[in-house]
């Protein structure tokens, strides 16, 4: 039998979008340190359910750090205290016996709470729909060498493509800005020849980002520090300069 710990959880409970929420205290006793954070919540939920209570709602899907569905703020840190790790990949051995954990949902105007720890992140999808796509010819897959991509570019594009869209960058940003997410989407396709087809992709994405009510980036780099996939803020710089260039081209063409 492996080591167990006892924790006090203060969890944000909110019945619905328009009802006020508050922190509720739960005792997490005999928690196996080999459990993941989500498994720990499962154990608590089982106990709540056995008591005829309403289990804590939280988002999750793959539980292997690749889908971007999970994520809550643990003691002020999105995805918890471990760097480069999603909440589902965070293990309870990261915590000490007797710790008190304050568990809150992502906080942003653009991410309204649906229930408890579940927030509506569809604002990010709408940004991607506004310009985070590329035009690709249909038909048979072309020969791999028809469009040559420099290695350095493909590396950067792949790094940006690691973004799983979990929204932790927004949650961590003191301004609730989505710039790291949008920056990753810009680099992901914009560095590849296929992505260079449309010249107002970034403008459209930024318009949507602003309309959703995200804040303005003030280069605090909290996003990069929190990102479970280590997306670099150089992607934000790329987005800034691409945006400037697109603006100039747009002005010239009008």
């Amino acid at each position: 039998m492996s080591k167990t710990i006892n924790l006090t959880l203060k969890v944000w409970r909110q019945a619905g979008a328009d009802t006020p929420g508050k922190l509720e205290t739960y005792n997490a006793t005999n928690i196996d340190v080999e459990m993941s954070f989500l498994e720990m919540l499962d154990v608590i939920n089982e106990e709540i359910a056995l008591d005829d209570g309403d289990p804590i709602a939280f988002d999750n899907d793959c539980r292997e750090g690749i889908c971007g569905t999970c994520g809550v703020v643990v003691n002020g840190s999105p995805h918890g205290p471990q760097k480069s790790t999603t909440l589902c990949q965070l293990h309870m051995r990261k915590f000490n016996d007797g710790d008190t954990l304050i568990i809150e949902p992502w906080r942003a105007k653009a991410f309204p709470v649906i229930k408890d720890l579940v927030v509506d992140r569809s604002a990010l999808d709408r940004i991607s729909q506004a310009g985070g796509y590329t035009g690709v010819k249909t038909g048979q897959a072309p020969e791999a060498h028809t469009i040559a991509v420099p290695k350095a570019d493909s590396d950067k594009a792949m790094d940006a493509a690691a973004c799983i869209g979990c929204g932790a960058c927004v949650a961590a940003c003191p301004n609730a800005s989505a710039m790291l997410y949008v920056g990753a989407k810009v680099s992901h396709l914009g560095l590849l020849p296929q992505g260079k087809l449309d010249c107002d992709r970034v403008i459209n994405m930024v318009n949507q980002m602003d309309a959703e009510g995200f804040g303005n980036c003030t280069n605090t780099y909290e996003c990069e520090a929190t990102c479970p996939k280590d997306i670099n803020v150089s992607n934000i710089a790329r987005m800034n300069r691409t945006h400037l260039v697109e603006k100039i081209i747009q002005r010239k063409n009008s």
Partner: protein
Amino acid sequence: MQSICKKQLLGLTGLLLVGFLGGHLGGNLFLFGGADSFNGYAQHLANLRPGLLLIEGALGLLFITHIITALNVWFENQAARPIKYIATNQNSEQSLASKTMPYTGLFILLYLIWHLFNYTYAFGINHQPGLLTIKLPNGTVETKDFGLYGIVYASFKFSILNTLFYVIAMCVIGFHISHGFASALQTFGFSHKKYTPIVEKLSKLIGLIVAVAFSSIALYILIFNPINAISGGN
């Protein structure tokens, strides 16, 4: 205006203001040269009128644009997170300078107003005399009008509170720039594996230079009393 455009405007005006500070510092260094040197420089500037008005107008516009854009960005950012976190992030890596930009900015605005009344327009509009009583090497005491130099001199030499406020303000400006300079470059899209860390150091260095260089003049007058003044007029 789009968020990125707004921040680029904020960054551009900020960078231009840093440039202005560089020029201002150059002028202030004439204070080390004594009354004739500094008043000569001030006269030189005044002689540029009415052309100077144009520069002053442009400068005013820079300040106002920077302040209004910054306030707008700040208010929008407050609104972007209507419900704050209960716990504070223990793993935060945000620098104190970036966290306090709105507050250091507002403090600088206060200082700016104080500066305009006390220095910029103290002489030109109020025609306040810069009387200083100095002790000559032969022991005699003399009171005369040292012009703008006298006003600045008296303000640093005979009011510790004034000098303290000035030095604090210079440190706050330096602190503001230490984040602002590098941040502005990032906002314009400058990012490089090798050069961005250098830009970040440079940003801190510029802030440090502004704080130290401006303060040194005030402290030099306060501590060394280069013209042996024993009391100020006014």
